[in-house]
């Protein structure tokens, strides 16, 4: 796992108090969880505004259900389960089809700064941006279960066991799905990442 699990950074007593919906504990809980939730949701829905909407839904649901959270278990897979459900729900809503029609400046990190500074777009930057765009496009091209697997592992820092729990599949299936997703990306990016 690339990042430390939330289990190690949210003390149990904070979890217990968060479950009791104590505001200070909820804020501490939020501080630990929000960055990963946002990162994962942004990678799934690909638009900052949409990601913010989905994040609000995620925390709304967390707040509603937090009294059912088991303080003895790592809360991150549970949170990611909710996040993935919200992403699917977002896709199922009209908001997704409307959002697909346009992309905002916020969806191109660094672009606004370049415009503001009037700096030319150097070839290196362009190449780099083109490469990133290819990788992003390849990631988006993956079937949803594969993309979830990649996003949960690389951006949420979940292990395969936790992904299995989060997606309701077996451990072996989670590992296999991840391997296949990487292999598929390898095919799509054959020339770019040889």
């Amino acid at each position: 796992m690339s990042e430390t699990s939330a289990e190690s950074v949210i003390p149990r007593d904070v979890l217990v108090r968060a479950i009791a919906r104590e505001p200070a504990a909820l804020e501490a809980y939020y501080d630990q969880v929000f960055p990963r939730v946002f990162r994962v949701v942004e990678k799934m829905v690909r638009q900052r505004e949409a990601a913010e909407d989905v994040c609000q839904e995620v925390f709304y649901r967390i707040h509603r259900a937090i009294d059912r959270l088991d303080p003895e278990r790592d809360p991150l897979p549970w949170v990611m389960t909710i996040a993935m459900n919200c992403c699917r729900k977002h896709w199922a809503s009209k908001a997704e089809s409307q959002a697909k029609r346009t992309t905002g400046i916020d969806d191109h990190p660094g672009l606004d700064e370049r415009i503001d500074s009037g700096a030319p777009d150097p070839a290196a930057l362009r190449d780099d941006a083109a490469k990133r765009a290819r990788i992003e496009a390849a990631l988006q091209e993956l079937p949803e279960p594969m993309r979830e697997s990649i996003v949960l592992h690389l951006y949420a820092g979940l292990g395969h066991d936790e992904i299995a729990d989060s997606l309701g599949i077996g451990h072996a299936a989670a590992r296999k799905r991840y391997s296949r997703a990487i292999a598929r990306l390898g095919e799509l990016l054959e020339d770019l990442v040889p």
Partner: protein
Amino acid sequence: MSEERTLPPDREKRIEAELRSLPSPAPDPDFQARLRSMFAAGELTPTLPRNVEEDPSAEGFFGEPSGRTGAFGNVTDIADATGDGGDGFAAGTSARGAAGADTSPGAAPGSGGTTSQGDPIPLDFGARRTRKPRPLWRHWLVPAVAAAAVLLLYFIRPTPPGVSGLDVAAQGNGTLRVGSRSFPIAEVEQYASLLEPGTKLLVEGDMSAEIHMTVEDDFRLVAIAGAEFTVPYPAKKGRNSFQVDMGEVRVATLPGISGEAIEIGAPGTRVDVMGTTLAVIADTSSTCVCLLEGTAMMMMKNGDMHHLDEGMRTIMYMDPEKPDETAPIFGNERMKLEMLRTAVGPSK
């Protein structure tokens, strides 16, 4: 069990590194702060339409309200208690919408606040979208077209409503659990449309309860009472595959099967099937594969794929210390597999 890798490890690492290096736009700090305070105060409202959750096909496994959800029973009922049954957009406050709003402690929850010039900002609700009133004709046209489409589908569909490429039949006394819902197993019309690939199913009832699924012209599976498994993914969605988590599922391939193996996931192992008749029996301590005829491979504890012998059953125990066993198939199991093969005809 060794990790399955389909790319050289160094290339996999390079791809992972490229993915990790992708930039992520930072959230708006104002949004982040407002969401934080509203979360702590319990003032958040939903931002996604409610009506999507009312679609039974969007339900997860055993009670989770939307989409696929995992082993977290406590996710149940999270989203279905918003109380707004209308168009799905709850009136309330958005952490994102009221940028520039007065967030001072004195401001009323949900207030739009004021601008720096003191102008009031309108109340901003979760959806941030206002709907134009529909033209009158649309009130009638849309339902009429929808009704016509439903009727048309009803009359032109030769089989009960269901998922394309999947034929379902059932028999016996029992129920089939599809997500959080239970159906009499014999009433296929009631649940056929919910059987999306990957959906978890549980067959409950006496030993007469069976569900038969024919996946395109590739294979047929028979799940008996006690079987907990997933609806197969057809080959056109990548590869024939499904999961057996508990109980017994029998499989017989059909003449149309492509050269690619059917992949059956089971606790602690995986079985690749090519033109064969077999049964996968899983319980909490072991997974057993009974191969009547044909070719099948089973992943062993060390991660190697092991060719199974016809007429034999191979048992792999979850206990890493307990050696795998191979023995002739029991007569009763052989008879059931032979009956299945007879029912579906020769594999080629």
